[in-house]
């Protein structure tokens, strides 16, 4: 079976000389289609660094990295932009919606850069917002939405292009418990629908929703546990849909 994600011996060094920080010291990670992976670790263990590399936002200092069969290191700037647009949906801890643009305009943005026609774009954006339960908030700007609602808009934006891989860096880190449950419910349902998801978290509660948990410490993977089979349902789907 072809892998969605294949990272081999990735390292990342920030800075140089005496002040150099080794954020990743040789990480290898394979993710199959349909898997739901939680990456855990203490603060500073290199989770975000790994995620930024997987999301093509940053480049590794060394190592190889294939995304959906494509060797990312070999791509030029323009092709990487296309890859980010088509294959990856990114959800940030701090939402990162564009201010002064309504929810639906934010969600449409990846489609606009992908060259989708306006009418089709609007239809798909509204469908994505519907999926995250925000059909009644489409014309609100980010500053008119709660944190949980903003994060759901961000998830809709990440999903709207049907990416091969959904990445989320501490998506619930800035949310209260109710909103956290909303977001986890969305992820669990997406996973049940067959999406490939990688979530970063330092909360065990959140990690328990995944089918597989990977632990990082000091830039190395120290543990890789499977909680549910790749083609099965996420372990706590029943709770969130109840």
């Amino acid at each position: 079976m072809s892998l969605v994600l294949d990272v081999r011996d990735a390292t990342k060094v920030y800075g140089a000389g005496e002040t150099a920080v080794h954020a990743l010291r040789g990480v290898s990670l394979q993710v199959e289609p349909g898997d739901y992976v939680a990456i855990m670790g203490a603060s500073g263990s290199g989770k975000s660094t790994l995620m930024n590399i997987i999301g093509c936002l940053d480049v590794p200092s060394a190592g190889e990295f294939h995304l959906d069969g494509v060797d990312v290191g070999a791509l030029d700037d323009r092709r990487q932009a296309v890859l980010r647009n088509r294959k990856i949906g990114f959800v940030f801890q701090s939402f990162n919606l564009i201010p002064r643009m309504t929810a639906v305009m934010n969600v449409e943005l990846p489609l606009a850069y992908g060259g989708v026609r306006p009418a089709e774009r609007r239809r798909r954006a509204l469908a994505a917002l519907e999926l995250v339960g925000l059909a009644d908030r489409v014309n609100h700007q980010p500053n008119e939405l709660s944190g949980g609602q903003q994060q759901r808009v961000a998830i809709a934006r990440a999903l709207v292009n049907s990416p091969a891989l959904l990445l989320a860096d501490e998506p619930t880190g800035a949310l209260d418990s109710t909103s956290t449950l909303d977001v986890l419910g969305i992820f669990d349902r997406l996973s049940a629908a067959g999406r490939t998801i990688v979530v970063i978290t330092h909360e065990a509660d959140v990690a328990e929703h995944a089918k597989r948990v990977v632990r990082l410490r000091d830039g190395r993977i120290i543990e890789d546990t499977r909680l549910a089979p790749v083609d099965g349902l996420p372990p706590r789907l029943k709770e969130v849909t109840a």
Partner: protein
Amino acid sequence: MSAVEIVRFAFRGLAANKMRSALTTLGILIGVAAVILLVAVGEGSSQSIQRNIQQLGANTLTVSSSTGGGGGFRMARPQQDGGPRTQARPLTVDDARALADRTAAPHVSSVSPVVSATSQAASYEGASHAVQQVVGTYPSYFEASNKPVAKGTYFFNDDVLAARKVVVIGQTVAENLFGALDPVGRQITITGVPFTVVGVLKEAGATGGFQDADDVAIAPLPSVQQSLTGFGPLDQILVKAGSADDVAAAQAEVTSVLDQRHGVGGAVAADYQILNQATLQETVSAATSTFTVLLAAVAAISLLVGGIGITNIMLVTVTERTREIGIRKAIGAPRGAILGQFLVEATLLSLIGGLLGVAIAVTGAQFTIAGITPVVVPSSVVLALGVSVAIGLFFGSYPANRAAKLRPIEALRFE
């Protein structure tokens, strides 16, 4: 990502900060309007000066005595013409007669001796008016100086010979003395001497100069000499050449006749000067174009300052929106789309400013500015608009490029 889309993003970007966009636009607006308007003022004044010169009459030479200078030199000069000359010889009616000699000066078609008196009090019944210039001359003066009569007639050679007290007055004089009345046939007094008005000159119109060309009164030479100036030297001799091609030949003839009569030659400098309309026109147009270039340079500087304003605003905008750029890149915006958005923003700012500037300049050019009717030069409009757009592209490209080159993670981490 279509071009329309990029323009839409750019508009949205500008609308997000209306005050700042408006102020930047204002900078370009002022620059463009200044360029067009100042060039228009320069062109307007140049055209009005040219018109004034042409109004003096085509194909004419104005001979006048040189005043001052060279006197001491002449005193040291050896004897000549049967007596020492201790000063420059004035221009006389005899000089004028010699110039009218067909054999000595075949290219000269008419000669008009001129005396003039300034600010002479004229009155008619209750009304009075200080006439700026009272001219005593021959009938040929009207044609040579391009002063056609609108009402009545000129005076004739008979009037000159008989020293009749007849006068042709300009529009300003007619209005001030007679109002709506027809002046022809009525008697006015000029410094107490009665003159009969025989004609009124055609209006010369606003000329933008210091003098009102319509504030004149023209009478036969001896009449003016008798009553106002006395029988002293002439102020000028107006010489008209047969045609434009004859002006140079006529000037040579006038020079040789006068040189002979005034004993000029060898070490003796001329005691008169000849003003040629063509040379005058060239000199003046050279001067006015320098003036126009100077105005344009000042205006160009303000346009440049407007351009620096755009760079500054775009730099601030890019810095302020670095995070937004990071987000856009993270969701797959290619470099070209980011570059395009900021370039279009900068270009829109300068284009809108430029178009408003053109509108304001063209409106402003409808009014008289400092006594000058501006004449909009189309090439200055094209240039100012072109330069303002080029400024937008040029000064916008640095910040835009900087924004587009950022790696997504660098942009996202930016605080």
